């Protein structure tokens, strides 16, 4: 039992949040789609958290890897009839390969330069999605993507889809938590803390950064694949700069460098528009005010405030 007011507040907030999710899931409420979307973003933001929160690097180009996953899955399943899981795996492999090559070149950069380099990556991937029409369908995108399925089981109803996405979200958070608390995770944290001190203790700094970048790319790619299957349709806009902005907002609102931050941030930011829909014309204004209030009141993010 919690021993003080803050403890009780945490417990109540947690119980309320979980019951809301459970209620929506059980009743098949219209909010289920938004919840599923938030769950996909949990996977994406967990990877951002790995690379930025834990390894202390910065990437504005993670949408590129989500695009590889999304387009890879869409093309392979809708146009070539691959089973979804195999398509997801193949796309993630491609994303990893691209991250390996790009990472070797850009991760030498630090701070603002790394930010600009990775931003370019995201912009290039958007241009490719728009321009390479025979393969990507240009602005029209790709439709008719089948639902996720494994063996004979296909996730067809809203509730089934949400269950799969929620499972993916939990797996993402769990695996990042696991990574952080390992030999590899310590190397990552050391690189974030001081590259010189890390190297002096025998940590291969360049290698650690590249591996983290590749791992983050795999998560982002899986998030992209899930997006393609959950919606059944993708276009360049889905994986545009917007995705990065939303991902960053979720990461900072939830709490960068915390275990539950991506989960909390993705659900709060994902559901906020639904909650404030009643404000109609001033909806965007309310959205902005809420964001600013959260960032002022909980500068370490909601999960950070939770821990304190």
């Amino acid at each position, binding site marked *: 039992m919690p021993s003080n007011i803050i403890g009780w507040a945490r417990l109540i907030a947690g119980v309320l949040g979980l019951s809301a999710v459970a209620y929506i899931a059980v009743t098949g409420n219209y909010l289920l789609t938004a919840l599923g979307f938030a769950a996909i973003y949990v996977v994406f933001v967990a990877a951002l958290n790995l690379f930025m929160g834990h390894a202390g690097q910065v990437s504005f180009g993670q949408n590129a890897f989500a695009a590889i996953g999304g387009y890879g899955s869409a093309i392979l399943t809708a146009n070539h009839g691959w089973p979804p899981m195999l398509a997801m795996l193949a796309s993630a492999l491609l994303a990893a390969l691209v991250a390996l090559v790009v990472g070797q070149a850009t991760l030498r950069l630090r701070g603002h330069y790394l930010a600009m380099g990775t931003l370019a990556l995201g912009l290039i991937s958007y241009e490719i999605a728009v321009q390479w029409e025979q393969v990507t369908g240009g602005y029209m995108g790709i439709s008719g993507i089948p639902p996720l399925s494994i063996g004979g089981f296909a996730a067809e109803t809203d509730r089934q889809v949400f269950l799969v996405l929620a499972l993916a979200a939990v797996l993402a958070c769990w*695996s990042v938590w696991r990574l952080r608390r390992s*030999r590899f995770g310590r190397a990552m944290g050391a690189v974030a803390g*001081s590259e010189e001190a890390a190297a002096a203790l025998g940590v291969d700094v360049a290698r650690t950064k590249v591996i983290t970048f590749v791992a983050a790319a795999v998560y982002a790619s899986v998030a992209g694949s899930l997006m393609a299957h959950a919606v059944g349709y993708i276009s360049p806009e889905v994986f545009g700069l917007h995705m990065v902005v939303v991902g960053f907002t979720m990461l900072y609102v939830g709490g960068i460098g915390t275990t539950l931050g991506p989960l909390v941030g993705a659900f709060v930011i994902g559901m906020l528009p639904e909650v404030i829909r009643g404000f109609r014309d001033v909806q965007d204004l309310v959205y902005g005010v809420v964001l600013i209030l959260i960032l002022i009141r909980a500068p370490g993010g909601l999960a950070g405030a939770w821990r304190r």
Partner: protein
Amino acid sequence: MSLLQVERLTRRFGGLIALDDVSFSVPSGSLSAVIGPNGAGKTTLFNLISGFIPPSEGCVRFDGHDFAGLKPHQVAARGLVRTFQLVRPFPAMSIAENVRVGTHLRTKGGVLAALLGQPAQERRVADRALQLLDRVGLASVADQAPSSLGYGQLRLLEIARALATQPKLLLLDEPAAGLNHVETDRLGLLLRALHADGLTILLIEHDMRLVMDLAEYVVVLDFGRKIAEGPADAVARDPAVLDAYLGGADA
């Protein structure tokens, strides 16, 4: 037998010669010191030995191998580990986890191993970190953040972290800087104990009392040149050394 050999090491920064044709060697199992006034080139010497910057000329031999072209983490992997003049803790990690990072070279496993879990190795790592924290007197604060430590304690944390790599040679860049008398005495005891255990130590130090107390052998730098070397008491009486210290900014 000498563990470390520095041969005609020179480093220029543009027109400035930070280190000028310096040679000396460090015998296995010894406790030696590099001293010299501010700007004499001591830290530059450490940066060259530990692979952080390449020499303009000369070479470093360690344990029979040429160190040319090795990156810092490769130098560490061969058993030569350094600390920094300005402490560099990993601020987002607990004190114990800082030390656990030091076991990196003595453990195995990447992403896959992390996902599968390595409970036996992790238990070993945690035990080792606690032992080392106990040795430097920080066991009681193991779970706190480094920000809760004073400067002297941060230096001890850095030493514990370096020891976790199980080095053959430990390079300490001014370990007593910023320490009070009590802390300096405790540091002296720790270094002597490590030396007694067979660890080879080379330290840079300004605190002459500590150097005379500890070091068997001393190398003196001034303006990038080696102006003297020998047993501590002989060096302390060397006119060139007295001149450098009295004439230097550090007098």
